[in-house]
Structures are given as structure tokens and as C-alpha cells.
């Protein structure tokens, strides 16, 4: 092997592997964090888009990203239906609850007939919820060992029987009847929000304005704006993501720096030989940087593979969704390369400045 860079990498396989893993860790972290945020955000928006209502009527502050309050009287449904341009209105209670060790899940209480008429969801097995202990779930949840006839636990240990499976996914993956949800939450006659379908979607803004005029003091929002991306709805998430990305870059740089620092110390004598042979500082720095970049490139490839594997298994275990985007993959690759290059620069510069006679005498 004639290349000093490649032969050095092959000569110390364990240290090279650790360096590659260090870069891979940084790259995988960037991919997983950003993939999770994007996956969950897109999943939320995709499921929301299947509702097909143009307007959401609610009370200010009653619906947040991970919490809701059932404080809106359902009598508003009739008032909304009387407004010019409104085709139909359907009350919904959305309830968030802790799920497993990973986070929160959600369940909706809906007027099943009205909800299915408004949206494009259809039962593919069983029937809609009728009794207070009946629940319907979407295909994704059904695939996790919840066939029709099985039971799921909600609100602590209360068991609900799966009576139907619907498709496509829309809003929460589990739906009770509105009455069952009101009963469970002890909120009779209340809901979290009312979905409003307008006759002509092109006039949704005009209809929203009319609702505001006729029923003032509430919150009238277009559906497209109501289900924002996770990144926008959680304050500081974007900054948090950037901090994580920066930390990943620092991890990569530190691992490469440590590895290259050790390498330089071990190769002090070789650097002395290079200097005796007339290698310039620039040549020595470029040799070390090339080695670091080769390690970084391998780290990036391994990092992408790690992220894909981790995303797959985490999704299997927890239902968290990862969507890896090209832009973030590029960012992760740049971070891996820049981390490697910057991490190697100090040891490289140190090597380039070694006194050749001292280096040649190094044992």
C-alpha cells in the first residue's frame, strides 16, 4: 500500500474504527434528532390533512401541541351550522395521555357518523364505536397486535374493546364516541374543538370571518394553520435542534482530535523522517488532514447506516416516526467532514511545527 494515509488507517484498525465511530455518532445523532422532529411533524400534518375540514372553532388556549381542554360547549355546533357557507360542523374531544416510557399518545372522541361523512376515512373492518367501552383504531395501530375484538387500556386501567379499524389515518389513531369521551373525562356537553366544513373551500376565509362576527370571543382558525409543524409549535425546539447539531459536531471534532493527537504522538519519529526528507509544513498538515477526512468520510457512511438502523428499530419499538431529509443529511455530512478537519488541525499543526532533530530522536 503506497498511500501513507491509507496504510496508516489500516495499520491501526482499532483506533481507526473508534475514530470512525466517533464521527458516525455525531452524524447519526444529527440524523436521528432532525429525522424525529421532521417525522413527527409530517406525521401530525399528514393525519390532520385527512380531516378535510377547512376551519377549526375552539376556545383560545384550549388546544396545545400536547394538551387539550374540553371546555367548549357542543351547543355551538348548531350555531355554526346556521352560518352562511357552513356545510357541517363536528365536535371533537382530543385527549393526550402518557404512553409507555417514550412520551404521549392521544385519543379522540368524535361523533362517528358526522366525522366520517366530513372526512375521507372509511371503516375497513368492523363498525363504528357505539357503547361507552368501544373504540376504533387506524390501520397503523391495528398492525401493532390490536385486531378487532382485542382490548386496549386508556385512562389508567380502563379497558376498551376494539370494534373497528379505519383508514386512512386521521388525527389521533384511536377514536371513541363523543359520549364515551365526555363520560370518561366527566365533561358532559363539552368538546375541545369543532371541525367546520364549508360548502365552497375557496370561500373558507370569508366563512371564517362570518363565524367571528356571529360568535365573537372564540378562536376561529383555518385547519392548515391550526396543525402547525412540531418545530413551530414547541417553543425553542428549533434552537434546541441547532444546539444538538452543534454538540454532535463538537463530539465528532473531539474524537478525531483525540485520535489524531495520539497518532501524532506515536508517529513523532515518522514526522521527523518526513521533515528530514524535506516535507513542508503544508505537506505534513495535508497528510494528516487527508487521513482525518478519510476517517470522516467513513464515519459519515457508518453514521447514515447507524441512523437508518436506529430509526427502524426505534420506530418498531415505540412508533416514533423518523423521516430523514436530504438537507439534514447534507448538514450531517458537512458536520462530519468539518468536525474531522477541524479536530485534526491542531494535532497536524503541532506535528508540522515539531523540531526535526527532536522528532528523529523520539523513542
Amino acid at each position, binding site marked *: 500500500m*503506497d*498511500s501513507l494515509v491509507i496504510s496508516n488507517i489500516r*495499520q491501526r484498525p482499532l483506533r481507526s474504527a473508534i475514530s470512525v465511530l466517533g464521527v458516525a455518532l455525531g452524524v447519526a445523532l444529527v440524523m436521528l434528532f432532525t429525522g424525529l422532529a421532521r417525522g413527527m411533524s409530517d406525521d401530525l400534518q399528514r393525519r390532520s390533512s385527512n380531516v378535510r375540514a377547512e376551519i377549526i372553532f375552539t376556545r383560545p388556549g384550549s388546544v396545545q401541541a400536547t394538551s387539550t381542554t374540553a371546555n367548549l360547549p357542543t351547543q355551538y355546533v348548531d350555531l355554526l351550522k346556521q352560518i352562511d357557507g357552513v356545510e357541517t360542523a363536528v365536535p371533537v374531544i382530543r385527549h393526550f395521555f402518557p404512553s409507555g416510557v417514550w412520551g404521549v399518545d392521544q385519543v379522540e372522541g368524535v361523533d362517528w357518523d358526522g366525522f366520517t361523512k366530513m372526512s375521507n376515512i372509511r371503516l375497513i373492518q368492523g363498525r363504528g364505536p357505539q357503547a361507552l367501552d368501544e373504540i376504533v383504531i387506524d390501520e397503523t395501530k391495528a398492525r401493532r397486535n390490536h385486531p378487532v375484538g382485542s382490548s386496549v387500556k386508556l385512562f389508567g386501567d380502563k379497558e376498551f374493546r376494539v370494534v373497528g379499524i379505519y383508514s386512512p389515518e386521521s388525527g389521533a389513531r384511536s377514536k371513541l364516541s363523543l359520549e364515551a369521551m365526555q363520560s370518561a373525562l366527566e365533561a358532559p356537553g363539552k368538546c375541545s374543538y369543532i371541525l367546520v366544513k364549508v360548502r365552497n373551500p375557496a370561500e373558507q376565509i370569508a366563512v371564517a370571518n362570518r363565524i367571528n362576527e356571529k360568535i365573537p370571543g372564540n378562536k376561529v382558525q383555518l385547519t392548515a394553520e391550526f396543525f402547525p409543524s412540531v418545530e413551530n409549535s414547541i417553543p425553542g425546539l428549533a434552537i434546541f435542534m441547532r444546539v444538538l447539531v452543534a454538540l454532535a459536531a463538537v463530539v465528532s471534532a473531539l474524537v478525531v482530535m483525540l485520535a489524531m493527537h495520539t497518532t501524532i504522538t506515536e508517529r513523532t519519529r515518522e514526522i521527523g523522517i518526513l521533515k*528530514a*526528507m*524535506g*516535507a513542508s509544513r503544508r505537506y505534513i498538515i495535508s497528510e494528516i488532514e487527508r487521513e482525518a477526512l478519510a476517517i470522516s468520510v467513513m464515519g459519515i457512511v457508518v453514521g447514515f447506516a447507524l441512523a437508518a438502523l436506529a430509526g427502524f428499530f426505534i420506530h418498531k419499538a415505540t412508533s416514533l416516526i423518523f423521516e430523514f431529509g436530504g438537507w439534514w443529511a447534507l448538514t450531517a455530512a458537512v458536520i462530519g467532514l468539518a468536525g474531522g478537519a477541524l479536530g485534526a488541525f491542531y494535532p497536524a499543526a503541532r506535528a508540522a511545527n515539531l523540531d526535526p532533530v527532536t522528532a528523529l530522536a523520539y523513542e
Partner: protein
Amino acid sequence: MAIILKAENLEKIYRVGKVDVPALRGITLTVQEGEFLAVMGPSGCGKSTMLHLLGGLLTPTKGRIIVDGEDLTAASDAKRTDIRRRKIGFVFQRFNLFPTLTAEGNLRLAERIHANGADDPDRRREILRMLKLEDKMHHKPLELSGGEQQRVALARAVVNRPAIVLADEPTGNLDTENSALVLKMFRELNDRFNQTIIMITHNPEAAAACQRIIQMRDGHIV
């Protein structure tokens, strides 16, 4: 014959703690092109220091060194490195080959450093043939005997046609048979390519192979 190296009144003082230790105390030396010169003397007399100064690895405290018309002592560190790259080839007692590279890899590395990626396969083949290393090119240093390693080191030193080869006890780690073989190679290089060689040695037989011998003692040429 032209003068290839000239050292005038070279002094080198090392600072050890608060004490000044003089290693060279005014060395003046002229070497002709194509000369094969032996430097002898007891340990600590300043031989290696002089060799390092002549090769631009150290800077003198005082004095002047001209290598093939270029003033090493007036040059910056980068310029000195450049002169070393173009005009000097080193051979060390401990061979100092890159252990991760094959014999050929060691030579190609020297070519890359010298010529920024360019190489001269004809010159390389010629040197290898002369040093009887053709069948050892794909071996790594640890797969070679001491004599073979030193011949690879010699090939590496001369592959870029340096003006001067500086050898620091090149037979010091070799047995009698390999010493004789390596010395023979030095002589052949000197005869065939008119290669200028300055060789430090403790071995009188090795010194006898040279055209001129200088003796050093206590930092002086005697």
C-alpha cells in the same frame, strides 16, 4: 571539480537549562562535487550535530553553510526545508523507513515529497537494480533484513538525485557482511552517479572506503 558544500566557521551551542554547551567550535569544511567523505571521531565530538547543520535540520549559532550555491544559514525555516527537499538525501543508522509502507511505497513517498506527485520510474528502476532490491519492492520494512532495509533507505535518499547524501553511521546497526554490502552500494553510487556523500562512521574499514577522512574532536576538525 566544483564545490558542492562549504561550511565556514560553524559554531553550535546548545542551551541545557541555564548552561551553554558548545557542540561545534568553529568548523570550516569544503566538499567537492562527487566526493565521498568520511567523518570520524569519538562519541560527543559533534559529528551528528555537524551533519544536522549541513542538512539544514539545525541552524548554527554562528557561521555559514552554502549547499550547491544556496545559503542555508540565511534561509527561513520554509526555505531551508525546500533546500533540503531538493538537494539533500539522508541515511540514518536506524534506517528510519516508514513501517506501514512497502519498500516501493517509501521510495514513492520520497518522490512525491520531492516533486509534488511526479515520479521518475526509470530512475527508480535503475536505483533498485543497482541496489539489488527489485524483488523486495512489495515488502514492508519488517519483512526485510537490516541490510535490505538500509539499502531501501539508501535508495530513498538518492532516488531524487540529491546534490549531497548525508549518512549518519549507516552501517552502525548492521553485521559485518551487510555493512560491507551497504558500503559497496555507497561506493557504486559515488562511482556511477558521481554522488557526493558525507558519511559519519566509527568503523575504520568503512572510512577506508572513502576518498577523504576528516577527524573531529571536541567540536573541532583536527
